[in-house]
């Protein structure tokens, strides 16, 4: 095997951050759902709400723990895999990550302890406040990390002195051109991921116990939230695409597999981009639609990949990851609207649709990963777009070290991912079967089983 250290370093970093992103994409939005349930319990005191909270706080704690431990890994991976990045861009990346730790990590970690275990140790208002502080913490964390990620995509507010970047305006660094769009896009993506998780697990429970009220209520919540967010996401995604066209035209050219600059570019529904012939094989396309979407004109001009020499991302990968993301998004739109209409008209969804929701429990993950791969691979060959090349920042660690640890991480993550999904279904089943209290937390096991 020819081991290319750069590719291995990218694979390892990609594996780590790809595994990590799964859990924040659930917890950012789920934290707000729990805060809502908490308030409802305080004011309405519904029995279903308590049962729902009991299940979802467990799901949250589990997802959060996985997010924390994989997040700790990330703070080390910058240095172990991309020492050159820290060397050249550390002056900008460092403070943004520093603020994430200071304003988000401690807040969410500390109040999660109170939220999970402090019910009978603090007043009710303090307990509810803790739920909100956890939610604020998870969102603040997303704010800072997306500020950094967006800055790497559309850098501004800096100057280069002796090969190192220095910030000239922190406002310009944080509120860089792609930040508002990316932040909105990711927050809504988290909402959709959590909504489909809630709907999927609830549907799974209803397939076993059709009259289980907490699941009926949570299914409604998941479906309605998704039905509102799915079209909003398409709108924000479109704005994000226009922003990318303005600042990273090479990424758009790769996403649409446009090799030569053209007017009235077609939208490719299916194609095999071929980098040898620099053309697309087996293309099925809608004439002029790509130009229409991206320039809002039928004969709008789109820049082709040839304008960027070899400084453009690999085409086939982003072409496909983008289509997977959009495909899942459209599926979410269809499933949530169908469910919403049925719930409004008949107040119930048929078993077939319950199966669909169960199948789509983790659909948000697929869309998030595909979207994230699109934007990050689409930034290549740069690590900071137009400023620093990825290849110039890689570690000089021997390839065999990277390969060995890559296998170690991959094995650990495979174990965790399988366990996560198995345990999630188990606790959902136990809760629906009426045995939820037995598995509340450490120590509870012995205390509450007769």
């Amino acid at each position: 095997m020819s081991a290319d250290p750069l590719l291995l370093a990218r694979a390892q970093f990609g594996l780590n951050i790809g595994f990590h992103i799964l859990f924040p994409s659930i917890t950012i939005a789920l934290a707000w759902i729990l805060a809502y349930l908490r308030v409802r319990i305080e004011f309405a005191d519904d029995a279903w709400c308590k049962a729902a909270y009991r299940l979802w706080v467990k799901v949250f704690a589990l997802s959060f723990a996985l997010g924390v431990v994989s997040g700790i890994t990330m703070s080390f991976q910058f240095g172990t895999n991309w020492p050159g990045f820290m060397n050249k861009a550390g002056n900008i990346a460092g403070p943004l990550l520093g603020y994430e730790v200071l304003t988000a990590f401690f807040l969410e970690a500390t109040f999660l302890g109170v939220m999970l275990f402090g019910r009978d140790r603090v007043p009710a208002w303090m307990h509810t406040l803790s739920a909100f502080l956890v939610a604020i913490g998870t969102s603040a964390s997303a704010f800072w990390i997306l500020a950094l990620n967006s800055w790497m995509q559309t850098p501004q507010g800096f100057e280069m002195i002796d090969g190192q970047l220095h910030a000239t305006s922190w406002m310009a660094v944080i509120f860089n051109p792609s930040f508002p769009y990316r932040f909105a896009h990711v927050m809504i993506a988290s909402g959709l991921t959590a909504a489909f998780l809630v709907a999927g697990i609830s549907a799974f429970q209803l397939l076993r116990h059709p009259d289980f009220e907490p699941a009926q209520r949570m299914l409604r919540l998941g479906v309605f939230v998704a039905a509102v967010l799915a079209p909003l996401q398409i709108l924000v995604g479109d704005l994000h695409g226009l922003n990318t066209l303005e600042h990273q035209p090479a990424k758009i050219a790769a996403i649409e597999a446009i090799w030569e600059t053209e007017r009235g570019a077609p939208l490719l529904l299916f194609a095999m981009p071929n980098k040898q012939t620099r053309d697309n094989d087996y293309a099925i396309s809608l004439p002029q639609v790509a130009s229409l979407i991206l320039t809002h004109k039928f004969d709008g001009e789109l820049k082709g990949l040839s304008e960027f020499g070899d400084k453009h991302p690999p085409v086939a990968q982003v072409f496909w990851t983008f289509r997977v993301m959009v495909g899942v998004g459209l599926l979410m739109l269809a499933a949530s609207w169908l469910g919403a209409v049925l719930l409004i008209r008949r107040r119930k969804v048929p078993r077939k649709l319950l199966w669909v929701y169960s199948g789509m429990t983790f659909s948000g993950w697929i869309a998030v990963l595909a979207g994230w791969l699109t934007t990050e691979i689409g930034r290549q060959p740069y690590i900071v777009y137009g400023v620093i090349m990825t290849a110039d920042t890689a570690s000089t660690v021997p390839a065999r070290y990277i390969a060995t640890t890559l296998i170690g991480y991959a094995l650990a993550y495979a174990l965790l991912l399988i366990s996560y999904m198995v345990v999630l279904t188990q606790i959902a089943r136990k809760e629906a079967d009426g045995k939820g209290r037995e598995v509340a937390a450490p120590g509870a096991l012995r205390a509450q089983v007769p």
Partner: protein
Amino acid sequence: MELDLPLIFTALMGLAILAYVILDGFDLGVGILLPLATRAEQDMMVASIGPFWDANETWLVLGVGILLVAFPHAHGVILSSLYLEVALMLIALILRGVSFEFRVKASGWHQSMWNDLFFVGSLGTAVAQGAMLAGVITGFRGGPLFIAFEFLVGIGLAGGYALLGATWLAIKTEGDLHRRALTWSKAAALLAAAGVAAISVATPFASAGIMEKWFAWPRLLWLSPLPLLTAVAFAGILLSVTRLQRGASKREWLPFVLSVWIFVFAFAGLAYSMFPYLVVDQLTIWQAAAARESLMFVFVGTCVVLPMIIGYTVFSYRVFWGKARSLTYGE
């Protein structure tokens, strides 16, 4: 007057690392002691650290975060030199962190697997961190002797964490478990003392600069309270634990406080050895520091936020004050 920001951030990083070692130290220590207890006791042991571990680990992220923010050049050098040790620690931390959840939420044999992984992860983290410490104080050497030294420090640190864990349990538990925690405290204290002694002896040989810093007269005289007070603290632990065992004392918190002292003294000694280097004899804090405008930006935020963090951390420990109870999620 110009603020010496690299110096301030060195102090902050030291504070974060010390806070991490003590706070995550006691919960890792509880994990290391886990196989010695019965299943019911294990649940109580985990319950005594359940509300805290997450925030405790955040101090590690802060420590590494400051290294990254304030000393980006050293961040790259240190972490790529410790590549394998860091990877081992991370995988161990991951396994242990998720075991908190999985060991109660999984069913059947999975449950005992996660219980075992909780121990393996805690011990692995401690050994890997000891190895990292060994790498930092010897300036990242190679060779079989160095690897042996890494293991030695790793086991010493695991002993130290077990000491913090056992004395923590002595405060937080009652009955049988409390009595056993006292027994564990003594054994762990002896192991930790051996570890501290080994590191203290080996470190000066790793670097002529460090040798000079400690053994030049009259500095030796000024520095002598440090090892002496450490020895007194160890003796104090053995004595106070014995008095607790005999029922001659009610000060359950004393062994834990003395254990924390030992960590503070050991940390002070190491900090003195290293300063002002981040990479021994190669890279000083001023050479490795980030640009002034970046440090200033974070410094302002730190001044505002750090007191809040300390405030709500204290709040959280007060909420869960007293003997541990079995953990249940409230409704």
